[in-house]
């Protein structure tokens, strides 16, 4: 480490906690995030964990990581980290590639014994040399021993003591970044509310970690992180899946409809089910069904019955729900389908992020079955887009697929708790009284402007009717196999979805609007793309940036925006699905593509390079 102690002022800093999947790295990272957010920092997190709950201890496959960026102008969890905490050799080996040049590594040197090194497939007894890490950047801390020392008088058994190592590391990181411990203690208090002895132990260890940092500080540069001037209000820390769940609840409040969730556990979407199951305290009925198909079908039943009905899943589950979603298309019932995308195909990479379900969302059903597709841009935007999905579903009587992903679903940010008055009323399309009174109402009577059929809710006298998956006569709603009627209904269903474009915001262009180059993204890649476009502009490579949150229909001004630029680049975490979706609308424009399908988010640096390369061509 450098000789002289310095305090650096940084506008943002990235910390990566890594260890065995049982080492509590997610907890340590989460608490550091919450503490930083409470100090007014922007935060963005990236939990990077294995699919196995407990892989063999100390093995390379069992490494769990949690990366967080805190400070000002935080749009992503960061390409690489300033500080890497590695609780064992496997964590160091797997994560050293994420360390910035000059970044600091903190290791638990007690966990670097020869047997530990063998488990992580090191060939020598010197892990640092083998990985080519300069020792001056490494803080070698006997975390295990110091944790035991701190707890010597508590009477805890060795196993319980070892479980506190993560909090020692947290205390050390808090010292490093000048975070007072009160907030962290409060979070430990709520985490271990039912285990007072464990809480007290963690508190001791947290302080010990902090004090250790203080005592050896002469050899470490410490950082202070700038805080933001945030919009006044009450804030909380939120991840994308919780934001999604809460957005649905807001939509239930604004529509006056009870909220129903029919779901089945699947990584990485299950937290939505967890959150809504807790929200019986707000009247939510969240039902864990027997399978994915029952999840969507129970939601369709709830929708027919008059509720705001939702099903949540990930890619494989969306595949199973296809036929059910087709029924909702045919019956023209409101339904929100949440797909927290993960790596595919098949079981694929359950805990990793991708944008590879776009075509499945748009086309993955039999017959001509158009529906609306929207995609949140950030963890907090999950709230707004879940609300929008509900608004579109209810006001346009259609299934809507919300394409979230593992990155934003698990990633967290600080979120200003909104007032209900900041969101519009959602107006269910009930059968108009005059139409009912005239006796001319039929199940497929439509509003002439939007082509939306009316929602006649069971229990209402005089509106008894039958719907189903068979084609219907466009006037009476009776079963019809008439060829011309069928074609008319196909076009009507398509046009109904197209007209949603009148009811959604226009596409905005950010960064340098007058540039020649337009960088385009959609969904959960917003943070990385915005950061890349900003960096390109700062480097003198003028770049405009447009990000799509409405996928079908596209915003009404989409083609106008595309035609304004000499060079159009679509960057996405698949092999070019959204680029294809745009390309078929503008065959005359050449669309450049930046694609990555590694189960990992973009890195800002690689995006900047890729755009520069295209611009230079």
């Amino acid at each position: 480490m450098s000789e002289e102690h310095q305090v650096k002022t940084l506008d943002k800093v990235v910390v990566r906690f890594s260890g065995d999947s049982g080492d509590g790295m997610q907890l340590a990272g989460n608490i550091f995030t919450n503490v930083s957010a409470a100090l007014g920092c922007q935060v963005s997190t990236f939990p990077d964990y294995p699919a196995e709950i407990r892989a063999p201890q100390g093995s390379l496959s069992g490494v769990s990581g949690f990366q967080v960026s805190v400070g000002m102008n935080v749009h992503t969890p960061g390409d690489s980290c300033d500080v890497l905490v590695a609780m064992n050799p496997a964590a160091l080996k797997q994560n050293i590639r994420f360390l910035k040049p000059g970044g600091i590594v903190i290791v638990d040197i007690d966990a670097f014994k020869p047997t530990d090194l063998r488990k992580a497939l090191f060939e020598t007894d010197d892990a640092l040399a083998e990985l080519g890490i300069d020792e001056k950047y490494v803080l070698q801390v006997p975390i295990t021993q110091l944790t035991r020392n701190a707890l010597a008088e508590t009477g805890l058994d060795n196993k319980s003591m070892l479980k506190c190592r993560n909090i020692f590391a947290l205390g050390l990181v808090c010292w490093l970044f000048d975070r007072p411990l009160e907030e962290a203690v409060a979070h430990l208090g709520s985490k271990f509310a039912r285990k007072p002895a464990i809480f007290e132990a963690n508190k001791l260890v947290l302080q010990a970690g902090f004090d250790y940092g203080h005592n050896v500080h002469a050899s470490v540069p410490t950082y202070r992180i700038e805080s933001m001037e945030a919009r006044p209000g009450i804030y909380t820390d939120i991840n994308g899946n919780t934001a999604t769940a809460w957005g649905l609840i807001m939509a239930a409040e604004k529509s006056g409809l009870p909220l129903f969730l029919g779901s089945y556990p699947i990584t990485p979407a299950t937290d939505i089910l967890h959150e809504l199951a807790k929200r019986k305290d707000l009247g939510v009925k969240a039902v864990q069904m027997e399978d994915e198909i029952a999840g969507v079908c129970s939601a369709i039943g709830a929708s027919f019955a008059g509720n705001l009905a939702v099903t949540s899943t990930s890619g494989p589950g969306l595949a199973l729900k296809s036929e059910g979603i087709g029924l909702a298309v045919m019956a023209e019932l409101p339904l929100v389908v949440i797909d927290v995308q993960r790596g595919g195909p098949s079981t694929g990479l359950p805990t990793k992020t991708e944008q590879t379900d776009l075509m499945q969302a748009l086309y993955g059903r039999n017959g001509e079955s158009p529906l609306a597709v929207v995609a949140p841009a950030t963890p907090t935007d999950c709230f707004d887009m879940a609300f929008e999905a509900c608004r579109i579903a209810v006001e346009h009587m259609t299934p809507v697929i919300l394409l979230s992903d593992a990155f934003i679903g698990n990633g967290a940010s600080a979120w200003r708790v909104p007032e209900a008055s900041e969101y519009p009323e959602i107006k269910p399309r009930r059968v108009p009284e005059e139409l009912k009174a005239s006796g001319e109402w039929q199940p497929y009577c439509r509003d002439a402007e939007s082509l939306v059929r009316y929602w006649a809710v069971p229990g209402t006298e005089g509106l008894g009717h039958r719907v189903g998956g068979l084609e219907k006569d466009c006037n009476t709603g009776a079963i019809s196999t008439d060829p011309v009627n069928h074609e008319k209904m196909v076009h009507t269903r398509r046009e109904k979805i197209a007209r949603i474009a009148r009811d959604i915001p226009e596409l905005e262009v950010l960064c340098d609007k007058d540039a020649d180059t337009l960088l385009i993204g959609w969904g959960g890649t917003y943070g990385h793309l915005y950061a890349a476009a900003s960096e390109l502009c700062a480097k003198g490579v003028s770049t405009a940036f447009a990000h799509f949150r409405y996928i079908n229909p596209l915003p009404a001004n989409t083609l106008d925006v595309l035609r304004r630029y000499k060079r159009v680049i679509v960057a996405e975490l698949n092999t070019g699905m959204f680029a294809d979706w745009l390309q078929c609308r503008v065959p005359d424009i050449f669309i450049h593509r930046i694609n990555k399908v590694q189960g990992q988010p973009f890195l800002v640096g690689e995006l900047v390079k890729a755009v520069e390369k295209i611009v230079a061509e």
Partner: protein
Amino acid sequence: MENETKTYTPADYKNGQSVRWCPGCGDHAILNTLHKAMATLGVPPHRTAVISGIGCSSRLPYYMATYGFHTIHGRAAAIATGFKIANPEMTVWQISGDGDGLAIGGNHFIHAVRRNIDINIVLFNNKIYGLTKGQYSPTSPRGFVSKSSPYGTVEDPFIPAELVFGARGNFFARSIDVELATSQEVLTAAARHKGTSVTEILQNCVIFNNGIHNAVTDREFRADRTIHLRHGEKMLFGANNDRGLVQDGFLLKAVTIGQDGYTIDDVLVHDAHTPSNFLHQQLAMMDGTDLPLAVGVIRDVEAPTYNDTLDEQVREVRARKGFDTLRSMVLAGNTWEVK
């Protein structure tokens, strides 16, 4: 507003659609008895929902004046479950065939029964796929020859009642399509039961499986090969009502009163309400060969329903936590203020 004291006739539940089932199909009789059962129950048509899957029987909702949903193959139980949870004021009927309910929809069927959601499942069992023109179904007997089993099936069938008991069901009844009074009686009892009711109706497919139930349903010997069980009554059957069921070790035995020393006192009394399903299962498994096939309400036991328990839990949690909006809930958690 609706008049709760209003009485209804079967015609109030019929709509004007012309019924499209084949002439002679057993479904016609079941439809008529369902209309009658609904009138007996007196639940207004707009408070009644009929939800079906796919198959001949699943066309039934189109012939009702209630709310109806003709859904997708196998999924009616899941859709009816969501419907009932969302709108518990409605009386919910699910119409399924043996293919729809027990093959493609078998998983939803057993889970609906396990949850004890308050829906009335009517299972039309004709032991054949009719709408796809004659393939064997999961209730077709071993060796059954059909278009998809030209050399006979090499698998054993489900007995619907056995599945219901395996899934810990609390209501099981059976009837035969041509026994109109029995069908009306069991459908009415099924609807009055709180929780999942399963009513199996042996139904004849006149085109693809004509006479499949004849071994028990033929008029000539129906009285000797079936028994109508009624709660609190002796288990008697036979053309002269002189045969009865008695306990024989752990099993049942059919005897003739006055023969082999058996008297009327030896004949068992049916208790549909006893929580133990041991005897119910034996009764339901009788198939008309050694022992008569049972019709009537075989099991009818009160148990907590999914929908009532869920509503109760929501009320309890809401009262305890006292949140009225999303914001009030969020503000009760970890937050900080930026001024």
